[in-house]
């Protein structure tokens, strides 16, 4: 089984990398991009029986820094 974890900076935390991407898109002529937020996707290949709670614990302990980041978990 697999899990996909999305980690994003929380709203209100400045994302200088996203800003740089937004500027670069504008420079390439892509008008109308009002904002860019850059995050991470982490794919986990899990042993059978691993629960979503286990993955949530992994997020809390290591995969996300909840001071600045939020996360969501998709199990499949």
């Amino acid at each position, binding site marked *: 089984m697999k899990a996909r974890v999305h980690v994003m900076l929380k709203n209100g*935390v*400045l994302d*200088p*990398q996203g800003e*740089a991407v937004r500027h670069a898109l504008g420079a390439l002529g892509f008008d109308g991009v009002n904002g860019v937020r850059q995050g991470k996707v982490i794919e986990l290949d899990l042993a059978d029986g691993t629960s979503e709670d286990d993955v949530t614990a992994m997020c809390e*302990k*290591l*995969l996300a*820094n909840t*001071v*600045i980041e939020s996360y969501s978990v998709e199990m499949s």
Partner: protein
Amino acid sequence: MHAAVVVFPGSNCDRDLAVAFEAAGARVSMVWHKDTSMPDGVDIIGIPGGFSFGDYLRCGAIAANSPICRSVADHAGRGGYVIGICNGFQVLTETGLLPGVLLRNAGLKYICRTVGLRVETSASPFTEGYNAGDVINVPIAHHDGNYYADDETIALLQGEDRVAFTYTDNPNGARADIAGILSENRRVLGMMPHPERAADAGHGGTDGQALFRALRGVLSTA
């Protein structure tokens, strides 16, 4: 004074930090990240600068979960002294020993130059060799030195006189110009600038020396 300097894969200021401790009169033990305990009688632990574990995932995140960091947390929990410099500061925030987090520099560039720091408090074992308000020149060398914490935490740090150093000319976007902060018991210091690189006349400046000398003063009488 017995200092332990923790070495992670990717640490690159560990030897400089050891030399600065030794120059201040300390006996230094180098401690590997896989070690599970500190040598006996360690007074202060130094977490050096560098790129522990290649900055993978987030700066300091993997190091903060390495075996030796449990001993660092235990040491701090017993009231022991800890200094984290640059990547070491990032590790201390990731372990939760210090609040906040270090984000990518606002200008997105790695910055390596000497900056002015204002000593915000002399009421700590690390800064008592300075006067509050002193401006000292210390090098920075980082890509992720942009200190961030929520408004409440910033107000708490300021209210409890736990901001140790601020930048005179903010190079990286850090909130409230913060360059270094103290723990609640004032025995854990995290700072982005490198005092160990301004601790010998050969470095071109010695403004960082007073920090290590102050520690010797505190720890030799402890």
